[in-house]
Structures are given as C-alpha cells and as structure tokens.
C-alpha cells in the first residue's frame, strides 16, 4: 500500500516552496516569535486606547452640549479643569483617625465643585447642580481610564516588558466594560433619570410616602412612620438630584436622641456573572458602598450601641447600576419593599424603634 503524502512531502515545485516556507516560518518564530506576539498584543492595546480616547472625548463633548443651554462659557473651562482635579487621600502611616480625615477631604472636594458650579450658574437648583456633578464624574472617570491605560501602554512600549503588556491586555476587557458603562450613563445623568444604583433609595422612597419629611444632615431626608406598633425611621438621600447623602452622619445624629432596636439597610449590589438582575440577597452588616467613611460611621454607631445591622442587596451589573433603571431592577425594588416590611415586623416587637436606610444615588427619585 502506498503511503499517503502530505503537502510538501512530494517532489513537486509546490512541495519545495512549501518546505522552504515551513523552514522560514520556523526560523522566524524561533527568533522573533516573542516580538511578533508583543506587536500583536500592543496593537490590541492601541485599539482599546483609541476607543477609550474617543469615549472620553465624546463624553466631554456631550457634557458641554448639554450645558450649552445655560449659556455660560466658564462651565466648559471648569469641566476641562475638573478632568485634572486631584483629591489627595490623607496619610495612613498612623491609621488612627484616618477615616475622619478622609471624610473631611472628600466633603471639601465635593463642596468646592458644588460651589463653583453654583458660582458659574447661580440660578441652578440643587438637584440640577448634583446632576451636573454626576455628569462631570462620568467624564472624569473616562478620562482617568484613558490616562491610566495610556500610561501603562507607553511604559510597556518603552521598557518592552512582555509581562507588563500581558497584564495590561488581561485587564482591558474589564476596563472597557466599565468605560462603556460610564459612557452609557451620560444620557441618564444629563436628563436626571433614575439609575440602577438608586434601587435602595427607591425602596426607602416608597416606604416614606405619606410621612412627614424632614431634612437631616447633609443631603438626607428622613420620616417616621408607625408600622404595626413599631416606630420606624426611614431615611434616604434627598432627591430628585443625584445625591448619595451622608447616611452615617444622619444615623449618628439620630442615634443621639433615639434608641434604635435594629437597623435595616437596602442597597444595590454588584452581581456575579450568571446571577439574576433584581434578585435579592439578605444578610447582616453595613450594606453600603463608596469610599468607606459612611460605612465606618454606621458600624461605629451599631457597635457602640450593640444594634443589629440587617440588610438586603438588590443585585445588578455595573452597567445596570449606572444606567437607567431596568424593569428587572424595578421588580427587585418591589420585592425588597415587601420583604423589608415583613422583616421589620418579624424581627422587632411592638414599641421598638427601627431604622431603615435606603442607600444609593437618588437621581430622579424624590420622596
């Protein structure tokens, strides 16, 4: 039986050409294989970087277009400056008291941006100022992503570090996903639509309906209602502007005059891939994101006064958290609302005082 010959094994002209090609390819891959791979990976990074630049430029352009209606040229200049704004975190060599320092710095930064926007457009109401701040933050985030990726791209190119290039390429899908989410959030921020992160605030808003609303501390509102003999405090950030409030400060103030039997917290939480959007997870602890200062204050009050901290998370992806609220999240809000009422009655007794905090960005959600 004749042995079958493969391409290049026979003594034809094409066979010789293919043999030479194989040998050439082998030599090229042996000597320049890593270089070729580096080039290919760098091209991928370049493409992502270009896309990030376009996203950043588009977000800045979109924000400026939206601000045109106010007819103030200074706001555009302020936005350009804001993109390079830095907030220096406090020194943490001696960690005692670092939370209060960080809290002070963050509030100072927020106050400065808020006051400058108000200074440029004096007739703007508070909710619009907060929405503009959210728009600025989206552009800031996109600019930051672009600059960091560009930094590592240039650095890896300069040093020809294969490891650095692989690391950068490995995290790029995640970075691009987050950048896409921020780009998608612009329209919601500009027109004040409720976003997924406002799920916790919406639960609180639903429970607050009909109660007498009063302001407490910075950007928070609160009401007291009677639920089956329990005195229940409901708190959320003050809407409909895009505020997250300072629930920690408000809780500290309220706990001075009230003795809470328990604290319930509801917030939007990032789901893991494969989990259902709008599903509810119950648990214990201070359910609140952010830089950690508000969480610290809530934990301090709860620990000092031995108040149990219960909470529930309404699950969603990052994109769903910062873009207009989806129907799935809204269904989760309804479920959390019913579940929370049930848990308040189950866990507390008649005559108890209970605190309920709806955490999250309250853009497009009043009270």
């Amino acid at each position, binding site marked *: 039986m004749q042995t079958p010959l493969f*391409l290049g094994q026979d003594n*034809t002209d094409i066979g010789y050409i293919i043999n030479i090609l194989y040998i050439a390819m082998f030599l090229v891959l042996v000597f320049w294989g890593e270089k070729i791979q580096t080039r290919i990976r760098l091209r991928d990074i370049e493409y992502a970087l270009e896309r990030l630049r376009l*996203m950043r430029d588009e977000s800045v352009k979109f924000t400026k277009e939206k601000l045109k209606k106010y007819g103030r040229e200074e706001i555009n200049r302020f936005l350009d400056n804001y993109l390079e704004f830095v907030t220096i975190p406090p020194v943490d060599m001696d960690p005692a008291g670092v939370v209060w320092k960080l809290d002070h710095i963050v509030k100072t930064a927020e106050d400065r941006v808020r006051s400058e926007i108000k200074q440029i457009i004096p007739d703007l109401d508070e909710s619009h100022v907060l929405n503009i701040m959210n728009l600025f933050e989206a552009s800031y985030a996109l600019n930051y992503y672009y600059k960091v990726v560009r930094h590592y791209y240039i650095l890896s190119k300069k040093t020809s570090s294969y490891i650095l290039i692989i690391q950068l390429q490995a995290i790029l899908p995640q970075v691009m996903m987050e950048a896409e989410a921020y780009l998608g959030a612009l*329209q919601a921020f500009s*027109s004040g639509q409720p976003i997924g992160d406002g799920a916790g605030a919406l639960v609180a808003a639903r429970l607050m309906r009909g109660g007498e609303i009063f302001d407490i501390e910075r950007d928070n509102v609160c009401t007291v209602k009677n639920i089956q003999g329990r005195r229940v405090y409901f708190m959320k950030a003050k809407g409909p502007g895009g505020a997250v409030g300072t629930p920690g400060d408000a809780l500290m103030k309220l706990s001075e005059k009230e003795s809470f039997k328990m604290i319930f917290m509801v917030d939007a939480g990032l789901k893991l891939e494969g989990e259902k959007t709008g599903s509810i997870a119950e648990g214990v602890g201070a359910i609140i994101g952010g830089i950690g200062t508000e969480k610290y204050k809530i934990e301090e009050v709860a620990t000092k006064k031995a108040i149990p901290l219960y909470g529930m998370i309404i699950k969603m992806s990052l994109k769903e958290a910062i873009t*207009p609220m989806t129907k799935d999240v809204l269904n989760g809000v309804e479920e959390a609302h019913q579940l929370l009422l049930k848990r308040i009655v189950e866990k507390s007794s008649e005559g108890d005082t209970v605190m309920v905090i709806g955490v999250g960005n309250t853009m497009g*959600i009043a009270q």
Partner: protein
Amino acid sequence: MVTRWASPSRRVSALEKSPVSLLVPFYFFLLGLLILFSLILLVQGVTGAGRNDSVTNMLFIMTGLTGLVSTFYMIRRYQLSVQKTLKERKIVVLTVEECSKCSYKAVRPFREGDYVYGYGEECPRCPKSLGDTGVENRMVITAIYLEGGRQEERY
C-alpha cells in the same frame, strides 16, 4: 422627548469608522492571497497536474476547499461585525404615572424633568374641581424604567 440614551456610544462607534486604517486593506489583501492560493490548489487537485496519485490530488482538493471556506467565513464575520457596530440601538425610557384618586395608570415615554414621586400629566378620568391649584388633578409618577428590561452587554 423619546430618550435614546445610547447616543454617545453610537457616536463613538461612528467615529471609530472615520480614520482610514491600513489594517483593513491589508487584511483583505491577505484574504485575496489566500483565495488565490486555495484556487490554485483546487485546480491542481481537480486536474491532477500530471500526477496519477489520487491521494495527493484529494489532499490538494481538501486543502483548497478548506482555504476557500475559511476565507469566506472570515469575510462574513467581518461583514457581521460592521453591521453590529452600525446597528442603531433605540432604547426608550418609560415613565409610569398613577392617579392617586382613581388608580388610573398610564405609561408614556420619559420627558426631561420627570422624576419618581413628582407630578405627571392630568388624570383623564378625574374631573377637574373648581378650586384646583394645578396639582390636585395631576397624576403622580410612580416609576421610571428602561424599556426592554435589560441592558445589552457588549462583552
């Protein structure tokens, strides 16, 4: 106003198309070479090219066909990716209004200035009272959400 919230994303997609990249012509040049090479192999396999070895001829035909199929597959993939980028996503945000008196419920596209627990339009069912201050007859916005239920994931 119907809100198409993905407009900045669409504009980025459109901008991405604008710079003339050398990569695309180069890619198609390589695909052209591959088609040519595959065709030569196929013709050689079919005609036999002076060989009486049927196994080698069959291998030539198979390689040529594989080359052609994979080339057309790559062209189709490119076409699909272009179509996907250019496809306009119209995502509409809806506002739900409810009358607190008669529980009438209405759903309409979101308008700038709408917010949950803010006032919406007048209730078409409830009669306007004489001493109406302009708010009494209006429905309350109870929900604002994205039509379609879920966000489209690109990754």
